[in-house]
């Protein structure tokens, strides 16, 4: 591959982080925590968030398989999803405001 392995690992983490963040925001409970209570999650926004979110997950899985092969790639992908999910749930619980820029972007 063009990039070195640490770079690829960071890429995997970033892709999954963005993907899972968007997916979590597509749930009304998290959306309302991150934004003002007034902004409700529109159906269009929800679908857009989910589409991009799932796409990023799938893309990251494909990249993982291309770089490390199906067996090792699977390990990297699952391990990174666990890491990302943990970090994301900590952010959502303690610092949801950090993610407030995302709904703003989608509302423009």
């Amino acid at each position, binding site marked *: 591959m063009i990039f070195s392995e640490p770079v690829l690992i960071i890429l995997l983490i970033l892709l999954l982080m963005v993907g899972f963040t968007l997916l979590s925001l597509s749930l009304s409970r998290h959306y309302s925590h991150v934004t003002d209570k007034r902004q409700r999650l529109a159906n269009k926004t929800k679908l857009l968030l989910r589409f991009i979110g799932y796409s990023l997950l799938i893309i990251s899985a494909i990249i993982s398989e291309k770089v490390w092969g199906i*067996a090792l790639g699977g390990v*990297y992908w699952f391990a*990174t999803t666990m890491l990302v*999910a943990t970090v994301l749930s900590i952010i*959502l619980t303690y610092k949801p405001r950090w993610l407030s820029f995302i709904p703003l972007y989608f509302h423009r």
Partner: protein
Amino acid sequence: MKPRFRQSMNWLHTWTGFIFGWMLYFIFVTGSVGYFENEIDRWMKPEMTIVNQVIDEQQVLKSAEYHLNILAADSPEWYISFPAARSPFIGISWLQLANSETNTPRAWQEKNLNPSDGSAVDVRETGGGRTLYRLHYNLHYVPKVVAYILTSVAAMLMLISLITGVIIHKKIFIEFFTFRSKKGLRAWLDIHNIFSVLPLPFHLMITYSGLLLLMGISMSTVIDTTYGEGRKNHNQFYKTAHLDIKERQFLELPPSELSLKSVLEDAGNRFKKQKLSYIGLKSRGTKGEHYDIWFDDFEGIKSVSSVEYRVKGQQVEIEVSRSKVGKAASVYEFFEHLHEGLFADIYLRWLYFISGLLGSGMIATGMVLWILKRQKNAGKPNKIKFVELIERINVGIIIGVPIAIAVYFWSNRLIPISQVTRDEWEVHSLFISLIACISFCLIRPKQNIWKEMLWLAASVYMLLPVLNMFTTEHTLISSIQKSDSLMLGFDLSMLFFGICFAISGITVNKKSTKGITTNNLVPSPN
């Protein structure tokens, strides 16, 4: 989902978790520690010299052979290990045969070689990281077969707990990321969910693969009926089932020239991209004398894992094992590699370790929940006493097991090197301190036990680097100067764990008379 079904899943989850909860906690903690077995070995054998620069393998081989010829002249098995990423040492080891005249037992001996002058260094007798992690399936003080059966049953109950846990954790996609932490029972349930749900792929994998690894024992009657009872018949099964696909080739080398030197040279040329791990000389001095070479790459479906050189007839033959003959054996090996994680780089290795600790946390918080639920529905005084007893032992084990592991490290530095059975006593001190911790929790006032145990853990971990400094020449500064990253990493990690325990000790609310129910371990968000 029918309410009755959910209730029975709840019941099953509670009781399968309860039966072996303490033992499973011990298994998870000691198992997680095992992912850093090599790094722990380095710390527990401080006499070893780190190899930081590139070495001449043939030169190393020469000095290794020199020492082996003196120390292991009658030994039938020699091994020379070369520096690898996680074990940057040169080592020689050999099988010392039992000798009734000199009263020496059959034992494995090892020495570390100093690369700068080729001298052999004596390393202290210690179980090291390997013994520590093996506790998670060999247990201790019981015959191995008993331990395997117990561990296997525990793993089966663990699997049932995991699956029932998934079933009763409804609302997976509404609650996946929501962990509102409030005070009280709800907070503990939330933490239990974090530790269980987020690393769920790991938990399922480790439990299932663990069961597979022990299937030879738990389903030994299957082998009994197909191959017959007894060790010999069972070994026949294993030999057949795990047969490797071997590629054989004859070499140009004349049999008289087959030696460690020529084997090393040929292997180096043949497998240029692979890093050498071990070279072994087996059945030495007999007709079946042969050489084994292992490479550093373990997982990897396409990489070579073991190579044998032997004399066949008038020629030298090389035999390369690439994969298994049987599909079932391939699947088994895949799960074995997943469980052991030997292939893991530093990123995956830390994730393995942290997932293991989260699993331990899952079990611990589960045990706490069991107590809290029963305290809520407290009734007869007998029952209250019983619940209190369990609660005390809980704390003794949850904080006691980490303390015991730290004591294992302490004993490595404190037991005199001259003591013959020091490796056994290191393990004894682990269990003695565990009993001491539990006893401590049984006698102290209930509202103090969490705080006091956490502070005990904090001190015993934070002082480890200090102990290292006073009992060996390895200080934090010297480790940085010598680029001894394994020693430094271990010392810093111990410091970090100690600080984590200290922070927990500070945040635990001492004033709560209900013990852990109003614990401030997880502060609520704004």
